[in-house]
């Protein structure tokens, strides 16, 4: 069985040995990269700086929450707002792999720039097993290029260090609980963020719509779980689809987008089954999304696909 205590001890030792100079941790505030940050801090203390990139594709209030968490952790950190860069780079891009590669490259350029400023030799990432597995290579097919693996350009100016490469989400959580990491139970959120929760082309307006839809979905699911109405899913989110359908609003026809909501149970994200959420909860989510976002969304569908054949995120 996976032994979190042993893992922390061994990985901290390895990092101590490996990181002979200043290092930077690419940290989204999620459980993987925050665990990697805490391990690296244990190993090299103040020679570590955490960099969080606001891609403009983050969830509601996310950047502020991460800032607070970094402060609580006592990390040296920087929050870089690169929203405009990301949005411009993604303009008119519809193909999911292209989106992921552009995002991977944007991330690394930001880190490169920051690394130069600080004279950093190592970039630590919270890459876990499914990231490199799904990114493919050799005999393995590429399912999705994860932004921290397959999306990386070939010319990078520092060495990449990945202490969590061989572990899965459930194992990272065990380490996070042991280390008392605040985001230990936070649901997975993909590195490319809301960009892969908008099927097809990305506009500022669509980002706002999907951000709000995700906030509604998260709010109702979490409340229902707290009230004991449902088992808390492993992951739960909303995706803005690219097709429009007809609706009726106050005796007027409208023709706007569909939001697909999805919730899954999983251990490690490598296989998943859709959550059997009661209709009453689904209905509540549907009503809130279609009312709050009525001029943009008039239809909500619930995704009942397992993985495989589907993946968890749409892109």
């Amino acid at each position, binding site marked *: 069985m996976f032994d979190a205590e042993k893992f922390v001890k061994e990985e901290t030792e390895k990092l101590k040995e490996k990181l002979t100079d200043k290092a930077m941790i690419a940290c989204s505030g999620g459980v993987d990269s925050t665990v990697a940050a805490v391990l690296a801090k244990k190993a090299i203390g103040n020679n570590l700086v955490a960099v969080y990139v606001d891609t403009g594709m983050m969830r509601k209030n996310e950047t502020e929450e991460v800032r607070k968490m970094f402060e609580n952790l006592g990390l040296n950190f920087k929050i870089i707002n690169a929203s405009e860069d990301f949005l411009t780079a993604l303009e008119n891009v519809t193909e999911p792999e292209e989106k992921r590669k552009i995002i991977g490259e944007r991330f690394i350029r930001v880190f490169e720039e920051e690394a130069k400023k600080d004279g950093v030799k190592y970039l630590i990432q919270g890459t876990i097993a499914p990231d490199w597995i799904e990114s493919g290579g050799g*005999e*393995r097919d590429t*399912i999705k290029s994860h932004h921290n693996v397959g999306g990386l350009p070939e010319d990078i100016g520092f060495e990449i260090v990945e202490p969590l490469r061989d572990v899965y989400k459930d194992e990272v959580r065990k380490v996070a609980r042991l280390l008392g990491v605040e985001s230990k139970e936070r649901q997975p959120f993909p590195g490319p963020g809301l960009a892969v929760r908008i099927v097809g082309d990305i506009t500022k307006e669509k980002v706002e719509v999907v951000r709000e839809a995700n906030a509604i979905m998260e709010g109702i699911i979490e409340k229902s779980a707290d009230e004991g109405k449902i088992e808390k899913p492993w992951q739960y989110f909303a995706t803005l689809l690219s097709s429009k359908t007809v609706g009726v609003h106050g005796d007027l026809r409208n023709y706007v987008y569909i939001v697909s909501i999805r919730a899954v149970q999983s251990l*490690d994200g490598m*296989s998943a089954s859709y959550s059997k959420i009661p209709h009453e909860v689904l209905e509540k989510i549907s009503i809130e999304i279609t009312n709050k976002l009525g001029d943009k969304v008039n239809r909500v569908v619930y995704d009942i696909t*397992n*993985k*495989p054949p589907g993946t968890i995120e749409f892109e």
Partner: protein
Amino acid sequence: MKIFVVDNGGQWTHREWRVLRDLGVETKIIPNTTPLKEIEKENVDGLVLSGGAARIGWESARLGEIGEYLNHAKIPIIGLCVGHQFMALHFGGKAGPSTVPEFGKTKVTVKRDSPIFKGFPKTFIAWESHNDEIKELPDEFEILASSENCLIQAIHHKEKPFYGLQYHPEVEDTEFGYEIFKNFIEICKKYKSEK
């Protein structure tokens, strides 16, 4: 106990490694191009042939040296998904595109007793992910389990300690997945003690 996982490029190869490690087995993922001699040097007690993206009908060359292992390795071997299909093909059977491919949740029914299904109920839920299947089983093999859309879900060799599963016992959503690995470990232990 030392069991290696031969990587045919599957999405769940690393999961096989994890399950074996969780069960206290010494394990390692090795490329399917590893020469048999190197494996023999390590005194391995069993092999898992992982699944992979290779289409069995026309891409079996992507499966490297695994035919050599089946010909000469003197240890138990379990093939999963494409590893299972290859086993049948290698011993003279046929494998190719499925009549009805299966993805995700399926019900599997055990048809015949075998050490690999020791302690199993008659039916259980399994996770599938395959475009191909075994079409014709060589005489040395027997069918152990079936599903509605795939007759040959599990096989064993009548004389050698070789087993094949079309479904994926290594993923968390499959029922009794760890039990398959526990049973395989027992098979390896028994084989070793009788050697």
